[in-house]
């Protein structure tokens, strides 16, 4: 750790770990409800569990992105964050808004718009919070003499993410228009600006871990985010096929969303290629696994599994089935969860001065969670295909078809247990060895040590 203010990142990451574990608990509640064990129905009905599960995911990923920014920006800008005090205020207010929203969901206080369940009153607080965060980051960059592409792309992603939150706050009388603009938030986040954030973090990690020249890495970063927007903006059309708007979206959405996997493919090739080209032998193997893993699994989860149901002819049958849930899990996992876990794994040893780089526990956490998640996704996929066939092709009643796929949720829960064990080990490692120390300021980062060795 070079800059005192990078320590702020630790507390954001700690918030991530807390909310992530709660998210998993609510996932289990839903999984059990699906196999008939819904003893909690009176207190936590399925819609509450679902809203909590998905919103916690979004909030903790945002906390992770913010933590990543507080870690990366000082290093890229070569100066401290302008105000540490305000950064902590921002952290606390984020946690308060998040917890207030989640609590409200247990008392029927919400907005019932998938993924954007936060009531509008709290939306305004979210806006203030994000403005404060952006203010701190932008002021830091502004006062610095050094503006890198990596920092710019990361910041641009964060600024656009904030702007795109706004269309989701407008009220419409028509469900169709409501849904239309809801996708401006949800789709343009995960298949647009969040990819910039992911790309920025990925580029930073690759520069640090592989030692490849910054100019080369940043050039390809532009190509990747270029592909992202080129395909992703018009690709929004894949949510407009069957919600009551013009057929033109079947053509536009079909063509452009089919191109979206290219950005993820580019990201995977980029990471693997830079890893091979790199001559630096960075000791932080765990961070390297999460980093390269994120680029590959996001290509499978978002790219391939997204492509699998994005053509209008297919989507006509899979729209709104468990096939979507299958893709949703693997895409979020590969792209965003894994990249946040990667930056945490990279940052922790530097914040603490402890060289937890290559230990068994960390590797086990990686493999157990990844294999567990793959199993969950496979179970969901099988359930989804069976559902599509029985319900949408044979015209079987919804609940009759659901009975048929129940068994796959038993399998899913078994895999989820393996997954949760892996995440448990990751969090254990974080709690046990994660606390930042001031001594760490004196320990030069491994990269500096290495430069002497390599060159």
């Amino acid at each position: 750790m070079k800059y005192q203010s990078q320590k702020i990142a630790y507390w954001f990451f700690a918030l991530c770990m807390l909310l992530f574990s709660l998210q998993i608990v609510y996932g289990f509640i839903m999984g059990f409800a699906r196999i008939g064990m819904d003893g909690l129905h009176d207190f936590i009905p399925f819609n509450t569990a679902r809203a909590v599960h998905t919103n916690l995911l979004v909030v903790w990923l945002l906390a992770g992105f913010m933590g990543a920014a507080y870690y990366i920006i000082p290093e890229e800008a070569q100066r401290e964050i302008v105000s540490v005090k305000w950064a902590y205020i921002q952290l606390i207010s984020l946690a308060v808004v998040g917890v207030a929203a989640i609590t409200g969901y247990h008392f029927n206080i919400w907005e019932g718009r998938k993924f954007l369940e936060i009531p509008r009153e709290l939306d305004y607080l979210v806006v203030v919070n994000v403005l404060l965060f952006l203010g701190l980051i932008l002021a830091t960059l502004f006062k610095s003499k050094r503006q890198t592409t990596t920092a710019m792309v990361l910041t641009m992603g964060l600024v656009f993410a904030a702007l795109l939150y706004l269309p989701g706050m407008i009220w419409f009388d028509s469900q169709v228009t409501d849904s239309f603009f809801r996708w401006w938030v949800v789709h343009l986040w995960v298949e647009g600006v969040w990819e910039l954030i992911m790309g920025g973090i990925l580029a930073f990690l690759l520069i640090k871990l592989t030692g490849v020249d910054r100019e080369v890495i940043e050039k390809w970063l532009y190509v990747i985010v270029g592909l992202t927007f080129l395909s992703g903006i018009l690709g929004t059309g894949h949510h407009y096929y069957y919600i009551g708007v013009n057929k033109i979206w079947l053509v536009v959405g079909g063509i452009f969303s089919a191109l979206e996997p290219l950005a993820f493919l580019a990201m995977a090739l980029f990471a693997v290629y830079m890893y091979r080209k790199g001559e630096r032998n960075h000791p932080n193997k765990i961070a390297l696994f999460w980093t390269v893993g994120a680029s590959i699994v996001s290509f499978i989860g978002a790219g391939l599994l997204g492509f699998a149901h994005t053509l209008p002819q297919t989507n006509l049958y899979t729209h709104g089935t468990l096939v979507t849930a299958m893709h949703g899990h693997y895409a979020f996992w590969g792209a965003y969860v894994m990249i946040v876990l990667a930056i945490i794994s990279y940052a922790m040893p530097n914040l603490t001065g402890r060289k937890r780089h290559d230990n068994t526990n960390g590797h086990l956490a990686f493999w157990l969670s990844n294999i567990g998640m793959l199993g969950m996704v496979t179970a969901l996929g099988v359930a989804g295909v069976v559902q599509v066939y029985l319900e949408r092709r044979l015209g079987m009643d919804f609940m009759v078809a659901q009975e048929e796929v129940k068994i796959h949720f038993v399998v899913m829960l078994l895999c989820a247990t393996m997954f949760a064990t892996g995440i448990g080990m990751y969090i254990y490692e974080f709690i046990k060895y994660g606390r930042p120390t001031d001594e760490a300021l004196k320990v030069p980062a491994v990269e500096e040590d290495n430069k002497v060795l390599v060159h």
Partner: protein
Amino acid sequence: MLSKSQARAFFLGGTVVTFLIFIGLTIYSLAPSNDQTNHENITEQVVKGKHIWETNNCMGCHSIMGEGGYYAPELTKVIDRRGEPLIKAILQSPVPWAPNGRKMVAYEMSDEDAEAMIEYLKWIGEIDLNGFDRIVSPLARERMKD
């Protein structure tokens, strides 16, 4: 070989062009002449129904026009499939409705609320969904054959 500034131009150019097309298409598809939703039929009751739909997060279990949870049936053509009286009874039931074991929340809605909800679902049922309505409702599919 591609230079960094060419790569940046590709990024900025592609973004601006596709974004402008996107805005154009948005205006086009929301234009009143392209309406597929019978917008003029959105009565006060339908709006009220939408409000109830949202404040209870019905979408947390059900889907509508294919959007929502996957725990409970798709409701796009539900009035068509089940008829008004049954839907009203479900909305007003004092105990969780659970014909197949999976429970719905007991909302115990007033007459007024239940009727607004039904108007909302009726309006949804009339929207032209580019063919999706036939897939989610076997009844609608049967009718198409005749």
